[in-house]
């Protein structure tokens, strides 16, 4: 599995958005810290979404902190992908995986 090169973040703390911070870790795992006002109801779904999104990009060894402000699924996905692309500073984007 691929690791990310460095820490990065994307998003905002505004309503309907999510602020996502990621950093590389030494363990082969996807570690998720979620803070959301809808955690009780949708927490598992959000974690599944994040895990799937990271796996699709072939990433592991990653710690992800999500501050969700009522974001739709695609917003969380967009912010997470932006953070990962920033962390890896890739010139070429593999759109098929996004």
């Amino acid at each position, binding site marked *: 599995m691929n690791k990310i090169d460095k820490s990065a973040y*994307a*998003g*905002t703390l*505004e*309503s*309907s*958005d999510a602020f996502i911070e990621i950093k590389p870790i030494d363990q082969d795992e996807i570690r998720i810290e979620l803070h959301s006002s809808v955690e009780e109801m949708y927490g598992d779904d959000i974690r599944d979404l994040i895990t799937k999104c990271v796996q699709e990009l072939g990433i592991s060894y990653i710690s992800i902190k999500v501050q969700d402000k009522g*974001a*739709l699924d*695609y*917003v969380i*996905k*967009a*912010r997470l*992908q*932006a953070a990962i*692309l*920033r962390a890896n500073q890739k010139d070429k*984007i593999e*759109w098929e995986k*996004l």
Partner: protein
Amino acid sequence: MKLRRSMLFVPGSNTSMVCNAFVYRPDTVMFDLEDSVAVSEKDSARLMVYHALQHFTYEDVETAVRVNPLNSIYGLLDLEAVIRAGVDIVRLPKTDCVEDVLDMQEVIEKIEYKIGTSKKTKLLAAIESARGVVNAVDIARCSDRLMGIALGAEDFVRDLHTQRTKSGSELMAARAQILLAARAAKIHAFDSVFSDVKDKEGFEREARYIRDLGFDGKSLINPNQISVLHKIFAPSKKNVEWSLDVIEAAENAKEKGLGVVSIDGKMVDAPIIARAKWTLELAKASGMLGGDE
């Protein structure tokens, strides 16, 4: 016929607006990746718009994206994202000449071919300089993908060494040229945004003015302007009734094999019938004939 009275600008970096713009039911939602997005957020906004375009909430809404110019480091990435996401229209910023349109078209064709889509993305050229206005006639007819040309007033007045005024006299020549160029090429003509969202009277005055000039619609920056604009573009009740009479008379004449139609002793010919049909389309879209609103 697709009505395009209102094109709502939505900054690609404003998540709340991106997620909710469809609710306001503009004729077209125009996501912006250019001037309203800070350089540090270009990447993130591009991804946001990429996903929004594919979300079911935008399935039934015409979508456009204002991309960054091809000569910037963002232009090609923007195009790659929005074409893959299935945008309906790409809005070219700062279109100065025919080559600007053809260059953009070539890149779009390459991306469409690469991803194997049968969709033919349309183009909308924003004219924002004196050079662009002078070349508007050639620009308007240079590509069968071009669905319209639009005036971008803020950059234009800067290029003209003047400023926006309440009277709009500084835009008189550009509006006339863009409108005539669009009509000659049989494509849409769009007016610029009205930036002072607090000046409701000024917005209404400008909307009536550009409607009377013949523009199809206007770019908007605030959702509150949509219903106001749609009301201004709605035909009068009298005009709708007259149009219904024209269509009925035309159909009766056709059934009877008559070439000429008359209403109240006045001859009704093909252009009048076409205008009546257009009025009824507008009336339908404005909810006057059991339409959308």
